[in-house]
């Protein structure tokens, strides 16, 4: 029970298959109270599916197994009502495409009030006042006048603010932000990130930030989890991963980020593409794209294990600390040819 008290959410061996194709291969993940965790990886690596599965939001054709505990209480396999009580009230979620995530035929005020009455029993004037306060909090200007407008009368960035306001309505302990800034312009992205940081400071709610943008994740989060092909391959603090990425995939993600400061460098792309979940490569899923892969990587799949510095890593030949970029760059270019 003492573990349950330290972690808000614990995922154990979470697996998801669509029509018999396994897309999530057993995820173990803890989210502490008030913690900000980043979930990083390319599209299709299972980072969104992990949390949709945890909240029971996947369509019926998905088969989910494993354990999802909230405050030590098991949710997985439970009745629909158990999920309905958790959603919005304990764990809220916002999505990638804010404009189509709001119901187009309902006024935005009503959509927020709906969440308030559901989770806090507010109705009528008090609900309206609280909704206006939330709209104010997420930075919707002139909220009083725009309370009765429809989602299409707001910009994409404002729709995401509305989504966040709606998520806050249930006073959740955890906010899952699933690529919340991907569909937005760069300047709006920065504003939404700032808003998330500020709200977390004000409310103390934990945040899981799902993104393929390492830079954005490192701004918001304390801990990062890197996923590849339905598995966690490396997990550690932002400082650990930034200063010494050990998994070649993590390293590759960092090398693919353009830098504003420092000398101009060529970006090093990760060769190849994400494997089809139907035909995962033998051994380590990343080995066909990996610049450090050896024969052993093709034969067996490395397990996630805790390293001396506390991070978790699933790699037989992790990147050496201070390994020069040039060597890798050469190898990558060889592979690309």
């Amino acid at each position: 029970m003492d573990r349950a008290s330290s972690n808000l959410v614990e995922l154990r061996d979470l697996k998801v298959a669509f029509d018999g194709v396994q897309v999530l291969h057993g995820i173990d993940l803890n989210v502490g109270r008030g913690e900000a965790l980043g979930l990083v990886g390319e599209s299709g690596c299972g980072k969104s599916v992990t949390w949709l599965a945890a909240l029971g939001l996947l369509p019926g054709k998905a088969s989910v197994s494993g354990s999802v505990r909230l405050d030590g209480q098991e949710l997985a396999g439970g009745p629909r009502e158990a999920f309905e009580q958790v959603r919005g009230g304990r764990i809220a979620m916002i999505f990638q495409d804010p404009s189509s995530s709001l119901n187009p035929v309902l006024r935005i005020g009503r959509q927020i009030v709906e969440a308030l009455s559901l989770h806090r029993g507010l109705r009528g004037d008090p609900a309206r006042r609280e909704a206006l306060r939330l709209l104010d909090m997420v930075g919707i200007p002139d909220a009083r006048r725009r309370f009765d407008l429809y989602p299409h009368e707001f910009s994409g960035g404002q729709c995401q603010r509305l989504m966040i306001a709606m998520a806050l309505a249930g006073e959740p302990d955890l906010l899952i932000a699933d690529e919340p800034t991907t569909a937005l312009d760069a300047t709006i992205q920065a504003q939404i990130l700032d808003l998330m940081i500020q709200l977390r400071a004000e409310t103390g709610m934990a945040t899981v930030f799902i993104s393929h943008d390492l830079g954005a994740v490192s701004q918001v989060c304390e801990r990062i989890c890197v996923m590849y092909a339905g598995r966690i391959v490396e997990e550690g603090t932002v400082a650990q991963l930034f200063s010494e990425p050990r998994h070649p995939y993590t390293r590759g993600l960092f090398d693919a980020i353009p830098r504003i400061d420092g000398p101009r460098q060529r970006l090093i792309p990760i060769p190849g593409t994400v494997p089809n979940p139907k035909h995962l490569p033998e051994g380590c899923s990343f080995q066909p794209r990996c610049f450090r892969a050896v024969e052993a990587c093709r034969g067996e799949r490395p397990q996630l294990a805790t390293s001396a510095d506390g991070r978790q890593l699933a790699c037989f030949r992790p990147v050496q600390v201070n390994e020069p970029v040039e060597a890798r760059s050469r190898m990558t270019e060889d592979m690309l040819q």
Partner: protein
Amino acid sequence: MIRFIAVRLLRALTTIFAVVTFAFVVLRMSGDPAQVMLGPDVPQEAVDAFRRSWGLDQPLWVQYLAYIRSIFTGDFGVSMRDKASALDLVLQRVPATLQLTLPALLLKLAFGIPAGVYAALHRQSFADRGVILLAVLGFTIPSFVMGLVLVLIFAVILGVLPSGGQDTWVHGILPTITMSIGGIGILARFSRSAMIEVMGQPYIRTASAKGLKWRDVVWNHALPNAAVPIVTIVGFMVGSLIAGAVVVESIFSWPGIGRLLIVSVSNRDLAVVQCILLIIAAAMVVSNLVVDLLYGWLDPRLRSNAAH
């Protein structure tokens, strides 16, 4: 909004005008009422006299202008057969037709939409497949076959329902059911696909993620969005309420508009046919107009498009 309605009204009037003109020309090209009314053996003088008295000896465009002029004064002509006002003849039949089509419409709505929505929410289930199968059967079996099968079962074999006539409300049961089955199938199909489309939208996931109960997600978030395509079909059905059903009314010898239309066409009773077509066109156009206004009410995005 006023401009929107004005544009639609103008378009509606144009449509009605086109229908009237088309009907006028085609009817006069397709046979001589004098021959049909008087029979093949009458002397030429009688035919000529008939034509003169109805103005059929005038050039087509003169007849047409006279017809249009009289329509604008509310005069829809006189039946060549009964010598009575065509409009009165048609209006007399309206209650009988509505007696069938209104209950049929209610049946379509009451069974078609719930069946489609249920199938969409239980996709790939046994019930879903059953609904699809019945819906396809419903709208592919022609109404004259369906009507005869129902007569065979309920009137001939079981002997529980009358096979024709309009004496009591019981006589209306079989024609009403025959008339509604195709529409139930169409509405079930449409509601199902509209609902499946909506249930896959991100805002439905948002509604679930919010913690709403499943039935609230369906009722408050999905159905209002699925209503737009369903309303289109229902509008079409409402528009054809008055047209009745030529085939079904004939099978069950029901004295409605459909029967009147058949008789009038075979008699070349020009004024009556034109009057019926005009009323049917007007009903269809009005219901389309109402549907357009409903779109705006149902979907705020369309409202602001129309305003611009």
